[in-house]
């Protein structure tokens, strides 16, 4: 008798607990700047969202809005998510920075995570990836593979993030090929297939046989494929549909583990405002399969570099490195500090052309 009562009450308690948990579903919102089908930046953030769903199943509810313009529209979308009961909101574009801070002020109990920005608050974290580590691997492959010794680079906007990538790729290309030359085209867009294709064509016409891109569409890959004998690297997403050539490798943004960890932190009540900047080691930056179009010894070298970046035994910006104007930056063996990297607004020695400012 007693046992039955005990069991019944236990079952009831369990039942109650389940109901309580269902009501307590953690709601996670995602604000995207592009369409989830862009095959690049937004696509990978959405993969991260799916990873959260997979990890927590019924315990989370995720919502997202795509194609949200930076500015007042994004502020409205974030406010709407907060009003509808979101516990955690990821805002995945640099331009969402001030709107995120504004909305966070109004909803002190909602946590916000802003990608690639620099403003934080007690309930706003920032997160970004050390893509420049991936650029080091790309630069190494590019330096070996180019026959014309001209590497084309499609820059999006002349901001520190992009400048850092150009510098890192150049340093490592130069290391394996002293004659290498970089030609840079600024597309002034993150995602515009037509402009990106034009930029790629211009670079190819100027003799580039390797194209690196810091824009998100696959248009440069298609342009390289048409031109033939030009290699490319997937950006943000693997873009493996263009492999094994022109796409010989890629930098993949892998947000899933971070999104899962942060959601877990909200569930556990251990969420704190942090500034995360992770690289290959933490798995936030992935290097896509290096295809067979790359000779085995080059591939081995690239993989070794990737490993040394991952375990921290090598830093992508290790001296001696001078700035473009010839002034010394890093002494022999010295590595760059995060502050300088975060605001990087200069090219390293050897790169031609100016950063538009």
């Amino acid at each position, binding site marked *: 008798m007693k046992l039955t009562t005990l069991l019944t009450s236990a079952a009831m308690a369990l039942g109650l607990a389940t109901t309580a948990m269902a009501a307590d579903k953690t709601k996670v919102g995602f604000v995207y700047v592009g369409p989830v089908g862009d095959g690049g930046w937004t696509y990978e953030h959405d993969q991260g969202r799916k990873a959260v769903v997979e990890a927590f199943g019924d315990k989370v509810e995720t919502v997202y809005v795509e194609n949200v313009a930076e*500015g007042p529209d994004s502020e409205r979308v974030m406010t709407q998510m907060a009003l509808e009961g979101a516990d955690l909101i990821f805002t995945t574009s640099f331009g969402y920075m001030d709107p995120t801070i504004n909305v966070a002020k109004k909803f002190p109990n909602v946590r916000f995570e802003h990608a690639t920005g620099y403003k934080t608050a007690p309930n706003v974290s920032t997160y970004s990836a050390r893509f420049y580590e991936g650029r080091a691997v790309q630069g190494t492959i590019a330096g070996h593979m180019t026959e014309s010794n001209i590497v084309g680079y499609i820059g999006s*906007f002349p901001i*520190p993030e992009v400048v850092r990538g150009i510098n890192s790729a150049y340093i490592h290309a130069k290391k394996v090929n002293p004659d290498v030359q970089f030609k840079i085209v600024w597309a002034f867009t993150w995602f515009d297939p037509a402009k990106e294709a034009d930029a790629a064509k211009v670079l190819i016409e100027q003799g580039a046989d390797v194209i690196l891109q810091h824009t998100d569409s696959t248009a440069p890959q298609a342009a390289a494929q048409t031109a033939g004998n030009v290699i490319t690297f997937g950006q943000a997403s693997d873009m493996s549909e263009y492999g094994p050539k022109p796409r010989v490798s890629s930098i993949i943004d892998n947000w899933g583990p971070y999104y899962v960890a942060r959601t877990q932190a909200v569930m556990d009540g251990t969420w704190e405002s942090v500034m995360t900047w992770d690289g290959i080691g933490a798995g936030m930056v992935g290097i896509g399969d290096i295809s067979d179009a790359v000779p085995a010894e080059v591939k081995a070298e690239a993989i070794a570099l990737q490993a040394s970046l991952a375990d921290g035994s090598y830093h992508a910006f290790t001296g001696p490195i001078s700035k473009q104007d010839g002034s010394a930056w890093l002494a022999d063996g010295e590595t760059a500090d995060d502050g300088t990297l975060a605001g990087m607004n200069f090219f390293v020695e050897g790169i031609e052309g100016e950063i538009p400012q």
Partner: protein
Amino acid sequence: MISLEKRPQPSRAWSLATPLVAVLATMVFGGLLFAMLGKPPIEAIRTIFWDPLFGEFAFYYRPQLLVKGAPLVLIAIGLSLGFKAGIWNIGAEGQYIIGAIVGAAVGLAFYPYEAWYIFPLMVISGALGGWAWAMIPAVLKVRFGTNEILVSLMLVYVAEQLLASASLRFLKNPEGFGFPGSRNLQDYPSAFNADLIAGSGMHWGVVAALIAVIFAYVLLNRHMLGFHIRLTGEAPRAARFAGVNPSRLILLCLGMSGALAGLAGLFEVSGPAGQISIDFNVGYGFTAIIVAFLGRLHPIGIMLAGGLMALTYIGGDIAQSNLGLPSAAIQVFQGMLLFFLLALDLLTNYRITLHKPEVA
């Protein structure tokens, strides 16, 4: 057999009814589209049209309707004056950008000095900026007979390059760690176009839009210039005989629409947006063309149409978030609205007649 018969006079009843019928048709066919996507159609329509106005969080969305609708109405009113006279300013987006850049530049030139006259100065310079940008196609048309549609449209892309340049160079926030974008005007009280009553969404841009509606109504119905505008659009030859100077009309219409678009840009940059950034413009200048036609080029109609467009934007975002509708489906939905309106417009000028096939 069904055939179309031209009405002797445009039907007044239909011209009033078509917008409503178009909205209803959009709801029906939009609902079908949502159902095919596997989403509950009634709930989706309710989320888009009802929730922002009367839902649980309407207290937040209603002010947002003003914020979203005001620039659309302000620009569309200006465009409608030209459209009525057959002067096609397609480049309001560019005038909007230039108004914002010039206005913000004037404000930032004073930073961090505080004074009451800074905001009024910004307003004037924003309007002048938009006006000047519209004067380019106007003067080229008057002087060399160029096509104002092409010139004004192409100048949008020039304006976008200037915007990128402003964000990266001459208006870049010196404390922004090298990132693009100007200082945030919301943090600069003398330049901040704040809500007149906190949380109401009523900023100066909304006031300006309302004034523009009244001004346009009076102009078109009570003023000689308004009569000339309508006459030129409806009967250009008669207008010539009535002594209308076409060059003067082109300069006036493009100038006014440019100034209003510039104002809209200024109010946006100093208020809701807060800063000049590379992606500052989000297409208000183009959407306003739709709003102008949706509102029948009539000031009151434009005001209602601007509200309706704002509603579909805000409701569309809610539907994305709450129901997981893709943004492309929302865009198709908005496209349907315009399509049905244009298609049903036919009924204003034509009537459908049914008659038996004649025996040969």
